[in-house]
């Protein structure tokens, strides 16, 4: 199949950006979206033009590195699918595709389709963990955890940290990412001791970097891992409790 791509090119963080048009020709419907881009890049190199920089690594939908806005949709048209797992059979011959980087104030552009998502690490550093020193843990089966609880924690922990939720949000809010981590740890017995400190710390840092949530729900629709928006409600509840509890204890 043949496609026309309109791709955001930007030489560096402070350089002005613009759309450039490229043709992707003779693309197999079995190739992945990123293989299509590899192909276009090979062509660019051949004619002496710098290849398009884009983010990717595992190409299996798990590392969370990839992410492109395709025709205004974070990770493109397929549901619950990261950009790297999109296949060309989701598109048709002759399609015109507009490719842009994640756009959000919390994710400054580095180059072309590549953005800086370091703010996510800052959120995790503010309590997105359970404090336990190496070699100090009791036997793993000491505390039984109901299967439903473990499954719930796993549902939340499946987040890959790609940032599509932020990119899809008109406000550039990071509630879904933050809530998923908080829910994973706050539901487990091991996570109780630091529950409210964690919640307050992470939410406050999140607000430093990202916009505010107005319940648009775009995040859930864009999320490649199907992270549920319900986690946000739980986070908000814990945050309110945290505010009053932490105030009392300080």
């Amino acid at each position, binding site marked *: 199949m043949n496609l026309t791509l309109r791709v955001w090119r930007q030489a*560096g963080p402070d350089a002005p950006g613009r759309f450039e048009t490229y043709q992707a020709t003779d693309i*197999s419907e*079995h190739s*992945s979206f*990123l*293989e299509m881009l*590899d*192909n276009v890049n*090979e062509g660019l*190199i*051949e004619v*002496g033009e*710098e*290849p398009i*920089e884009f*983010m*990717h*690594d*595992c*190409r*299996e*939908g*798990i*590392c*969370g*590195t990839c992410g492109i806005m395709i025709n205004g949709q974070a990770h493109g048209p397929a549901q*619950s699918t990261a950009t790297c*797992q999109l*296949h060309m059979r989701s598109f048709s011959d002759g399609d015109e595709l507009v490719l842009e980087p994640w756009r959000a104030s919390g994710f400054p552009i580095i180059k072309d389709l*590549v953005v800086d*998502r*370091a703010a996510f*690490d800052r959120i995790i*550093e*503010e309590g*997105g*963990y*359970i404090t*336990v*020193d*190496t*070699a*100090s*843990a*009791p*036997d*793993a*089966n000491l505390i*039984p*955890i*109901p299967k439903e609880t*473990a499954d719930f*924690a*796993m549902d939340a*922990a*499946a987040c890959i*940290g790609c940032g599509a939720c932020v990119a899809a949000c008109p406000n550039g809010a990071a509630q879904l990412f933050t809530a998923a981590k908080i829910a*994973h740890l706050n539901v*487990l017995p*091991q996570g109780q001791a630091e529950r409210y400190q964690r919640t307050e710390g992470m939410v406050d840092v999140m607000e430093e970097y990202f916009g505010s949530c107005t319940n648009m729900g775009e995040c859930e629709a864009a999320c490649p891992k199907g992270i549920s928006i319900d986690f946000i409600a739980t986070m908000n509840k814990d945050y309110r409790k945290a505010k009053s509890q932490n105030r009392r204890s300080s």
Partner: protein
Amino acid sequence: MTVLDNKVPDGPIESLWDDHKFSMKLVNPSNKRKFDIIIVGTGLAGASAAATLGELGYRVKVFTFHDSPRRAHSIAAQGGINAAKNYHGDGDSVFRLFYDTVKGGDYRSREANVYRLAQVSNNIIDQCVAQGVPFAREYGGLLDNRSFGGAQVSRTFYARGQTGQQLLLGAYQALARQVKAGTVEVVTNAEMLDVVVVDGRAAGIITRDLVTGEISRHSAHATVLGTGGYSNVFYLSTNAMTCNVTAAWRAHRKGAFFANPAYTQIHPTAIPSSDEFQSKLTLMSESLRNDGRIWVPNDPDETRAAADIPESDRDYYLERRYPSFGNLAPRDISSRAAKIVVDEGKGVGPLKNGVYLDFADAIGRLGRDAVADKYGNLFDMYERITGENPYDVPMRIYPAVHYTMGGLWVDYHLQTTIPGLFAIGEANFSDHGANRLGASALMQGLADGYFVLPHTVGDYLAPQLGQPKVDTSAPEFDAAEEGVRAQIDGFLHTKGTRSVDWFHRELGKIMWDYCGMERSKVGLEKALSEIPALRAEFESDVRVLGAADTLNSSLEKAGRVADFFELGELMCKDALVREESAGGHFRVEHQTDEGEALRDDDNFAHVTAWEWTGTPAEPNEHREALDFTNVKLSTRSYK
């Protein structure tokens, strides 16, 4: 040729590690902060080591070329992690895990290391559960297990099909806690491009900031590489796109010996490639072999759809050839068996390059929901890639390069032949011999990082108390930095005609054809003449556009591919001198009448460790003898 000293202490294997921990030197708590440690890599090995050393009070600086520590390739591991907990009372024990791992490795690993690995495996599970890793559980709330290839007990802990992700997030979160505590500094987007050696000891590293292009120098009292494996020398593999050998290779060029480079693992269950634009292969977890049955049609000219082929016209070749292990035969054996049937023309799929992995029986027996609960995300992944629904039609799979058992040679302390330079995780050669069993790489990475290295590094550092680290203005740092800059300039000024990827693909083809699932003297010699020729072409004809002072992924790849060329040559050389078949190394000249690998214990019960001499074609060979006193050397049988 020298015989290497592995520094394994004397004593009974059961208490070796505990006794040794007691006899190693310690750095007292208040002195730890006087030591700087560099760690390269934030995979399971690097992140767990950094978090633990930070907790202990060392000043740790950890580098990754990824944009976040959480992106390391470990994240992609699907199936699970082994431990000898024996929670199911099915007869597991530390000794059995040790025994299975040595046997699975085809008797080419170091007993003392493997025993220690099996011992600490249980601590890993405790540690990870305490961190909140959401392992799968049974209805009673206790931890669930599954079976993996090469074992007859259920000892594999898992978190859906995302075990690596959850373990890595656990280690990443432990690391984040230390960042917050101020003991660890994480430097992202930083690629290590050289190790600096001063007075025979590792003094630090040179890095390039992948976003700004800035080259910088870092020094420390000890340096640790947890930089992963080198499967991508084959171009197509199941590894993430950026996995590479550069850190290990540049350490090798500075004096660290490289052990058993030819030992590569071909995983039996990946999705077959679909066309020539294929950029990587996707693994379908080995856990699928718990319930999936592998077969091909008897008739090479079979045209019926899988479901229409009656039982009598199917060959369940693993169950037939290896009745006691069946579909759970170890990886090397399962992979070669698939190659044999596909080479006979019995392959399935449009390119006839796969075999069936069929869940029809399992769905009939357990019901669709139970199968979905266990493997749902893997099935979804398969469907996304192939457009076929594995609940209705069998999966098609084929072996793919997956893991590299070879790596930097390390002693019992995980120290390389450069004092002060340690290697952990897949980057070292240590525990898997000639073939790694499933679910044991995650175990090894975390064992090294959480439970072994933190002790052995202390033993190295203790005598250096009061000594400052080397100043980064030392001439050795100047020279290393100059070398790095010269290579980058060289790539940008070659202005040739072909892309880096083109060369990488060509190299990959040579490696797969001659140093892949089967190797022969003739083929390896051919590779040894083709690789240098292609490398010369790469040096004169590669086209790297753009500049050095910005994000430039072609430039990054050029450096990595340059190292793959030299490594590829060493792999072929290593495969050529190892005149036996062992595990993942199959020499066609050395097989039994039934086509099984034929070891030569009299002449090859050793590790081959190569020393860089400045000329890729002429490395020096060294050996470490392998003694088997606790496991009896025997021919592996999975029949």
